């Protein structure tokens, strides 16, 4: 019976191709606009760590000066990042299951192969726990050892991208590379890893690619590494040497920990409170104690990674979809009313109301499906357009299974919703009126 309805529907759709085309086009455009903005929003608001991110926390302490809050306009906010002193103070704790301090740096990479030109690489200077904390996939090798970290050995983990460029994708573990003229030994190569948003450092471009190489945090002082990321200072102090800068009150380091259960979390909170109290006894950290642990999903929310523009666009595009649906309702209604004599005849010949109802619902469902497919194609076009407009959105604009199936579901539902009222109207056709004039 269903196959018969489908045949009937196709027949009816073919009879009035302009109207059918307009309806499908209206639904398709509405869906495309909606899905394009939703895709932006969905990926911006994504949590790349999934459930695992609930145990991974960003750490914050209020290290700002006593005179003004960190953010004058939003006094409830405290610094997002750490001073060198505080990051090292926290590293002394043995409470967290895993912990890593980190910052962004840059260096020129050279390899033995003369054919490969030197190139600027972004580095993440961090602890070995970084890789386990964020569950980064390894293609070759592994993180550096604890002893290498303690001894501040010049070791490096390359990103897959960098390994492809510098070593043609071969296993480069054990090979030498030069970073700013210093020798480093490759200990590991990551597989593809570009979390979006780049939640562990949203200060420096939340949708940037992940760094090109990773080196131990313990190298910071021996190599006098400078941060290539954001640095914020509140204190007026003379920072005319590397040593003074490191002891200064500037924040530039991100700090993440993994806390497996509430007991561990409570103990870590105690540790933080004690740490800040100790520092206060030394005359630092003058603001009231306000130590915060925020897990990945909450962090993305607090940091407002989703741009307001993108939320406004989602609101606008749902209004757009509504216009398209009203449009489709009008067109379908026009079409069905035009079919009234035919329906009257079929009713007179014995078709039940429910059969008429199902038939027309099948027809609008097909229109919805076709609209969805058109919409899916147009969505791809829209995303290509956005990628071309804005290089910040490179990693943002890939449709995935969730989005594609979401589109189809929204499309068919739109079709059915748009068809429901006209279908109901057509079912109320009284057969007699249409038989008279024939």
């Amino acid at each position, binding site marked *: 019976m269903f196959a018969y309805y489908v045949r009937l529907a196709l027949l009816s759709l073919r009879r009035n191709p302009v109207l059918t085309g307009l309806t499908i086009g209206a639904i398709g455009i509405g869906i495309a606009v909606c899905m394009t903005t939703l895709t932006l929003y969905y990926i911006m608001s994504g949590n790349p760590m999934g459930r695992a991110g609930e145990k991974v926390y960003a750490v914050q302490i209020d290290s700002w000066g006593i005179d003004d809050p960190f953010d004058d306009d939003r006094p409830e906010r405290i610094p997002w990042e750490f001073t060198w002193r505080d990051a090292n103070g926290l590293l002394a704790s043995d409470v967290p299951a895993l912990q890593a301090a980190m910052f962004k740096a840059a260096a020129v990479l050279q390899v033995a192969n003369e054919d490969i030109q030197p190139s600027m690489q972004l580095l993440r200077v961090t602890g070995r726990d970084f890789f386990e904390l964020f569950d980064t996939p390894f293609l070759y090798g592994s993180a550096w050892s604890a002893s290498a970290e303690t001894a501040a050995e010049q070791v490096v983990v390359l990103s897959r991208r960098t390994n492809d460029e510098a070593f043609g994708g071969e296993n480069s573990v054990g090979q030498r590379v030069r970073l700013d003229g210093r020798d480093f030994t490759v200990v590991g190569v990551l597989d593809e890893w570009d979390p979006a948003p780049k939640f562990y450092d949203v200060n420096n471009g939340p949708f940037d690619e992940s760094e090109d190489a990773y080196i131990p945090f313990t190298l910071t002082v021996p190599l006098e590494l400078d941060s290539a990321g954001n640095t914020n200072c509140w204190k*007026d102090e003379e920072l005319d040497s590397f040593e003074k800068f490191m002891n200064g009150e500037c924040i530039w380091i991100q700090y993440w920990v993994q806390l497996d259960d509430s007991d561990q979390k409570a103990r870590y909170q105690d540790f933080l409170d004690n740490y800040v109290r100790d520092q206060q006894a030394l005359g630092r950290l003058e603001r009231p104690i306000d130590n915060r642990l925020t897990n990945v999903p909450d962090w993305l929310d607090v940091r407002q990674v989703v741009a307001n523009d993108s939320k406004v666009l989602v609101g606008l595009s749902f209004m757009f979809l509504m216009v398209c649906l009203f449009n489709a309702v009008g067109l379908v209604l026009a079409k069905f009313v035009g079919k009234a004599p035919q329906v009257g005849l079929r009713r007179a010949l014995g078709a039940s109301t429910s059969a008429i109802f199902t038939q027309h619902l099948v027809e609008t469902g097909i229109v919805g499906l076709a609209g969805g497919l058109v919409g899916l194609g147009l969505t791809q076009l829209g995303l290509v357009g956005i990628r071309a407009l804005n290089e910040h959105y490179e990693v943002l604009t890939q449709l995935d299974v969730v989005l594609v199936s979401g589109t189809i579901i929204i499309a068919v539902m739109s079709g059915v919703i748009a068809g429901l009222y006209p279908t109901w109207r057509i079912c109320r056709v009284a057969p007699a009126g249409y038989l008279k004039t024939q």
Partner: protein
Amino acid sequence: MEVRPIFSALLRNKTGAFLISLQIALTLAVVANALFIIVQRLEKMNRPTGMDVDNIIMVASSAFTQDYDARGSLRKDLDALRAIPGVIAATPINQIPLSGGGDSNGYRASTDVPSHDGISANNYMCDEQCVDTLGIELESGRSFDASEITFREPNSSFFSPGVLITRALGEELFGDEDPLGKSIYDGLGRSTTVIGVIRRMQGAWVSWEGLERVMVRPEVGLWPYTRYLIRTEPGQRDAIMPVVEKTLIDLNKERLVRRLTAHADVVKHSYSQDRTMAVILTTVSALLVTVTALGIVGLASFSVSQRTRQIGIRRAIGARRLDILRYFLVENWMITTGGVVLGCILTLAFNFWLVSEYELPRLELVYVLGGIAGLLMLGQLAVLMPARRAAAVAPAIATRNV
């Protein structure tokens, strides 16, 4: 004018008219707000920069050897860059204006002001060719000369005795008084004198309220990482860019020459968020207006074909073509008017949501009025084709049995 009968006839077929009204209302809400946002973004992107953005090239040099002669290579680079035919001026600079990257410090008009109440301003550190390279205009005072430039070792701390500031920074610091010759203090209490006032120059962050608060200092950092700005004769920029790159590469192999970019592209990149928003909103608005117009055409055509016989009868009993045409135009006018009345409420509600949730400014009335006028016109235009078809119905059709 036979308004009443048209209205009665409209009530006989409420659904179609109601659907069109709803579409008009939503279209007004979306388009009025979208246009308002688009105009704001365009105004933001078109603010005068005060610089000769179109003829400036930026390039960066990153040394990667540990015993790099920063001072010597800086000298050689600058001599070579300035010798390129078509180059007006070149300067090393700590940060690129309008790039989204920058330094800022708090400055005070006197040491009585607590240092945490200082006025934040962007710092640009460059040499004696800075003013010519940026193409900025001094409204009073003078630029630096070569003897005033201080070359700073990495991690050193220094505050030049004489600086240039923008008029905007001067107003923040000294109100209506002329800033020329006045002293400015940094957070550490060190002082400097204003030797020149820049009419206008934009700083680092395009969405920052203090974008025009800029201080230009005669200092050059001796870091392994150096940025240069080069200003060319008008129209020669693209031809000179490859020459700049080759010149720097040939001079010194112990560094990377990177990020060779036209300054105009740097600026464009900084506004990409605003441009993306403007383009998306324009596209959405255009599509929406098209969809709504097609909806009106579709439904009007349908109603014309439904009423062919009635039209024939009217024509047969004496209505002119013009009467028929006018009938559909008036009917559409009624529907659209209903739509825009509802639309005004929706527009304001939507704007209220934008204002309260996303800190957008309040909608200006002219956008609502413009939207109303535009939609009324759109409706009349959209209905014109079906209405003319209706007017062409021959009176004889009335005598026919469909």
